[in-house]
């Protein structure tokens, strides 16, 4: 496990829990660079002043907020950082909630917490109490000059922190103008669909889903490195069924056959 990315204290009431924050996730996406096609040299980005047409070093860059077309309020990077608020190293759990009430759509990034120096007793106390109370704590966390809403919950054997989305950041489904069918699905269709759901139900085993695309990208790179030509196929079109009931029946037949095998 890499080193912690933030050290501080979680408080609830007058109880202080020293913690260290670690990333819980890591990307394995294959990364590409931009190159100049004709000579394969790396592309570098240059900041050019649009008035003087010359390169501008980073220390001469200010941030502009456009208040109306072409009119900017100029801010230093430090002035933007000021919005982070008091840069305390404390996450105060202000409220506790039933985590089953929090829809996963609110969770953004995930971090694992370890105990800070000499914090083992307090850490274990918070973990055990959250498990016992079946609650998670909500608080604010200032990280990299930005304040986040966070949830701290009990994982199996450690505290887990999620940054959270704010309610106004989520699009409400009612704003989406979803086409309504001329008549609703009938009871028979719903019952059959439910049987189909049941026939395809399994436990969630995350490791059973591999990122096969990532492997194919790696394979493609290898073939290209060996000088191979890559063939390009055609895409295909799909249509909704005219007869929903017939499609359900046919699917269920399929599902049952599969289940029996």
């Amino acid at each position, binding site marked *: *496990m890499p080193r912690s990315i933030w050290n501080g204290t979680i408080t*609830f*009431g007058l109880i202080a829990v020293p913690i260290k924050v670690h990333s819980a*996730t890591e990307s*394995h*996406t294959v990364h*590409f660079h*931009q*190159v*100049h096609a004709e000579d394969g*040299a790396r*592309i570098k*980005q240059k900041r050019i002043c649009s008035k003087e047409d010359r390169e501008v070093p980073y220390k001469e860059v200010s941030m502009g*907020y456009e208040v109306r077309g072409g009119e*900017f309020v*100029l801010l230093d990077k430090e002035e*933007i950082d*000021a919005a982070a608020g008091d*840069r305390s190293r404390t996450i105060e759990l202000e409220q506790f909630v039933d985590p089953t009430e929090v829809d996963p*759509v609110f969770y953004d990034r995930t971090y694992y917490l370890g*105990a800070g120096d*000499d914090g*083992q*007793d307090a*850490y*274990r106390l918070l973990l*055990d109490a959250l498990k*016992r109370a079946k*609650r998670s*704590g909500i608080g604010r966390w200032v990280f990299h000059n930005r304040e986040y809403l966070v949830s701290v919950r009990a994982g199996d*054997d450690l505290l*887990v922190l999620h940054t959270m989305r704010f309610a*106004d*950041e*989520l699009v409400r*489904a009612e*704003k*989406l*103008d979803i086409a309504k*069918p*001329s008549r609703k699905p009938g009871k028979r269709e*719903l019952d059959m669909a439910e049987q*189909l*759901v*049941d026939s*395809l*139900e399994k*436990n969630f085993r*995350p490791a059973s*889903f591999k990122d096969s*695309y990532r492997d194919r990208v790696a*394979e493609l790179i290898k073939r290209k490195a060996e000088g191979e030509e890559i063939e*390009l196929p055609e895409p295909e079109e*799909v*249509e*909704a069924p005219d007869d*929903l009931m017939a*499609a359900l029946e046919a*699917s*269920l037949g399929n599902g049952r056959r599969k289940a029996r095998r």
Partner: protein
Amino acid sequence: MPRSMWSGSLSFGLVNVPVVMVTAVRDLDLHFRQLHEKDGAPIEVQRWCSKEDVEVPFEEIARAFEFDDGSHVIVSDEELEAIEPRRTRTIEIEQFVELAEVDPIYFDHPYYLLPAGSDDGSARAYRLLADVMARTNRAALGRFVMRAKEYLAIVRSYDGALMLSTMLFADEVRDSEDVENAAQKSHKPPAQQVKAAVAVIEELSGRWEPSEWKDRYRRRLQDVVSRKRKGKTIKAPEPRETEPAEATDLMAALEQTLAEMRG
């Protein structure tokens, strides 16, 4: 209405639901443009060749994978498309799961799926799938390809619509056993302390009301911008000096907390 990010179909047994995908998250962040401090002119980012020191037009830029020894291969968009799974425009439901069984750590970006086109068949198939998942509290797992990457996705009924969240693959979630100084058996708290801590938690408990939690950072940043616009100078606040004292006596801290809360 947000812009469509993807279009294709969701397949459920032999039922195909043509759908378009739109993001479920609104970007409310304040965006800044880089300006040249001395003349306030916007900064343009130009792409230059690191070898020839000339600006490179967009059509001469290629995507390359670099090996450890510095050599590279160029990979085109078409070649990446060629290795996409054959049924690239389809999210095929592979299984259903109980929603509560999926740890939120696996959820990545949320989107809505909307029935595509105007025909009644799509709208009915869409409604059937949304209704049956709401009724059974189940979510569907499947895979699809978007912008040259394959995603694992979880589709469920949310707010009367189908919501798709991209998911992390298992190997993108770190093993929590590797975290240093997580809970250790040797630090098991006495029952009396746990009981008091649970009492503190219950005193502070309430219903989850997402709209009560405002983005104070966004508001402060808006405030910084408007004060600056009026010509005021902005000073970064000093880090708070007084950090909470480490409780050496947990029981005393718990009791004092409860005494204060209960007045």
